[in-house]
């Protein structure tokens, strides 16, 4: 059947199983919107800013594991998506972004709302396509989804000129796709897995260091089974939180700059590090020269460029994390005697770890007069549903959430780890809530970041997305203030927000509900009331203004040089 390009694009989305898109109309996508008007199989959510639409698609993707889809018009619409695309790229989130483009004869003429979005996004997309002929559109869409979701996932941009949306052709969606230049390695080499198992069983002080790759490949069950089978301690990065249950006795919690003392000490004293879908980011390793000085390193990653990028690796395994972990479990099952021997030999190592955990547990000093942010996070965990999805912005509240919430299930924490994008939390929660209308979705924000996409309150109310917004308000850009306090002599340059905002009135203005308190005794009451409310809610907690995130490894210091109290 002959269709125009706009309709073909929507048919392709349907074929890919897309049920929700986040998009903003404009001159060069008006034909797509005209088709959407009568296209009932896809739910379209209109954000109030294209950046938020892109973050929402990202939140949708992180929460579901499916490909998130965002639409924007050419020019400013397209440039507004860039932060959202870069955020997804840094955290390897599968997304397809469709941007309108000026008609092909006008490309390069500085036409109205023309921008070279392919050029602008080249360094922050996994790949991108400019569709020049409607006959290529279906194949390009097929490739875009395939590339976004396979290998190391990432955002793919499809730039669709207006005349291609209008042009007509037969719609045939290819059943399969074959790209001769793109063949990601997905299965781990069995010999490498055998060698890895031998190295593990020889080690006496092993640490499993898990990153976002374990979440992305849905490897949580395999990871948990293997680590429990071998009684190996597990630490995760921010992106890896939830992949291994934090309530397991072998969990060390998060490592790195604001990681647990026991996790950083374990890394420093380990004789073997098994890196699973993690990339040895500078926030994790601290000073590279003194990172894990005694350890041999096994690195499992689907992306070969992650291996040996920052640290030397003794045994690389390229492949999908889930596949490799499943193979490791099979290996371990063949070696039951050796595994038993190994577990017994780990006793002194477990004693060391228990000692570190007891010496400096993650903690804080509570107060009866002022609300401590950590207390709010703990109360949120206590009062929220087991399968609640939490999104965060970036800064102190993000680290407190990572430290105190305790994530036991994958895909329950949505946070911008790589790019560190303020303004991510609220729209990401919106995307997750659109995917899971029945689940509790909570976004934990600071008073800085929440204002970067506060306009999305309107989207929440309009679309009946009952996101619970928590604002830990210290009237500061808290993380930068903390650095200014510790490293810049308390010269609080431009980090005090000064103007107080009435968030209760603000919620009211959008037709949502607002609560605010500065009393520790009211925290529980506010949370309960907010959770009971059926629509979107703002909970503002006036917190201790100069509370710091601790412990902390100062930038450039070694992992074992932690500031514990300051």
């Amino acid at each position, binding site marked *: 059947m002959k269709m125009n390009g706009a309709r073909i694009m929507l048919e392709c989305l349907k074929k890919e199983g897309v049920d929700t898109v986040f998009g903003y109309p404009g001159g060069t996508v008006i034909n797509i919107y005209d088709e959407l008007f009568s296209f009932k199989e896809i739910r379209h959510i209109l954000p109030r800013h294209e950046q938020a639409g892109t973050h929402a698609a990202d939140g949708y993707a992180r929460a579901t594991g499916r490909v998130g889809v965002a639409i924007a018009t050419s020019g400013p619409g397209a440039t507004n998506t860039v932060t959202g695309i870069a955020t997804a790229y840094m955290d390897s989130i599968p997304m397809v972004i469709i941007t309108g483009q000026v008609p092909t004869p006008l490309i390069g003429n500085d036409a109205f709302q023309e921008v070279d979005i392919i050029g602008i996004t*080249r*360094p922050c997309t996994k790949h991108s396509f400019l569709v020049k002929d409607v006959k290529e559109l279906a194949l390009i869409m097929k490739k875009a989804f395939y590339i976004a979701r396979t290998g190391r996932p990432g955002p793919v941009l499809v730039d669709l000129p207006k005349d291609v949306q209008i042009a007509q052709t037969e719609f045939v969606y290819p059943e399969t796709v074959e790209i001769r230049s793109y063949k990601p390695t997905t299965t781990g080499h069995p010999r490498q897995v055998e060698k890895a198992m031998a190295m593990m069983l020889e080690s006496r002080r092993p640490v499993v260091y898990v990153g976002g790759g374990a979440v992305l490949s849905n490897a949580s069950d395999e990871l948990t089974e293997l680590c429990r089978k071998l009684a190996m301690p597990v630490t995760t990065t921010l992106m890896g939180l939830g992949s291994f249950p934090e309530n397991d006795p072998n969990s060390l919690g998060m490592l790195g700059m604001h990681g647990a003392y026991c996790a950083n000490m374990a890394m420093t004293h380990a004789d073997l590090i098994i890196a699973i879908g993690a990339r040895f980011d500078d926030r994790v390793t601290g000073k590279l020269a003194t990172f894990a000085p005694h350890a041999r390193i096994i690195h499992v990653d689907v992306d*070969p*460029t992650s291996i*040996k990028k920052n640290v030397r690796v003794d045994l690389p395994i390229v492949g999908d994390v889930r596949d490799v972990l499943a193979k490791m479990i099979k290996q371990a099952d063949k070696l039951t005697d050796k595994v038993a021997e190994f577990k017994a030999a780990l006793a002194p190592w477990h004693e060391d770890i228990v000692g570190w955990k007891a010496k400096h547990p993650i903690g804080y000093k509570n107060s009866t007069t002022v609300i401590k942010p950590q207390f709010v996070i703990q109360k949120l965990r206590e009062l929220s549903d087991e399968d609640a999805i939490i999104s965060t912005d970036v800064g102190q509240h993000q680290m407190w959430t990572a430290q105190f919430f305790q994530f036991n299930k994958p895909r329950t924490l949505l946070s911008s780890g790589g790019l560190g994008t303020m303004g991510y939390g609220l729209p990401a929660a919106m995307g997750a809530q659109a995917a899971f209308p029945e689940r509790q979705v909570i976004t934990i924000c600071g008073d800085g970041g929440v204002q970067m996409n506060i306009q999305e309150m309107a989207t929440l109310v309009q679309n009946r997305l009952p996101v619970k917004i928590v604002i830990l308000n210290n009237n500061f850009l808290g993380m930068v203030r903390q650095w200014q306090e510790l490293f810049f002599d308390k010269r609080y340059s431009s980090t005090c927000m000064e103007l107080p905002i009435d968030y209760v009135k603000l919620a009211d203005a959008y037709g949502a509900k607002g609560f605010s308190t500065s009393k520790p005794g009211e925290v529980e009451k506010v949370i309960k009331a907010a959770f009971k409310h059926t629509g979107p809610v703002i909970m503002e907690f006036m917190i201790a203004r100069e509370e710091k995130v601790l412990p902390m490894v100062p930038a450039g210091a070694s992992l074992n040089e932690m500031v514990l109290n300051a």
Partner: protein
Amino acid sequence: MQHTISVLVENEFGVLSRIASLFSGRGFNIDSLSVAPTNEDGMSRMTIVTRGDDQILEQITKQLNKLIDVIKVIDFTDGSGIERELALIKVTAEDESRAEVLRIVDIFRAKIIDVTPKSYTIEATGNPLKIDAILDLLRPLGLKELVRTGAVSIGRGAKGWKG
């Protein structure tokens, strides 16, 4: 250490800028780059001369391979390749230097491709070191203009790149 890398790519829109932006974005050096279509439909071949230690070279080849449009990356540094470069050289040639230029051209088995009473234009082909050598000899005579293609490289032996 200098490396010569061949990159086989899909002849797609924007592929050159993807490769160039990879090098600039990650702080890798490009000493020379040449690109043209191959005998296979829709496939181009780039030869990139770059430099760096082993770890950097490993990253360069991995990052190139990661680009969706890259079909194959071949590093010829271990002497497995033959390298050639072409240079067009416009040199001052008056009176006594005219004979000297001709002698140099003859020694390097280069060609004169344009003549005026005051100049010769020379076409020289060879390994980049040979081009450097002829330039060293011509420079004192008055080099007016120089164009080099950058190196291209192909594997030794009977096998093609597919093996």
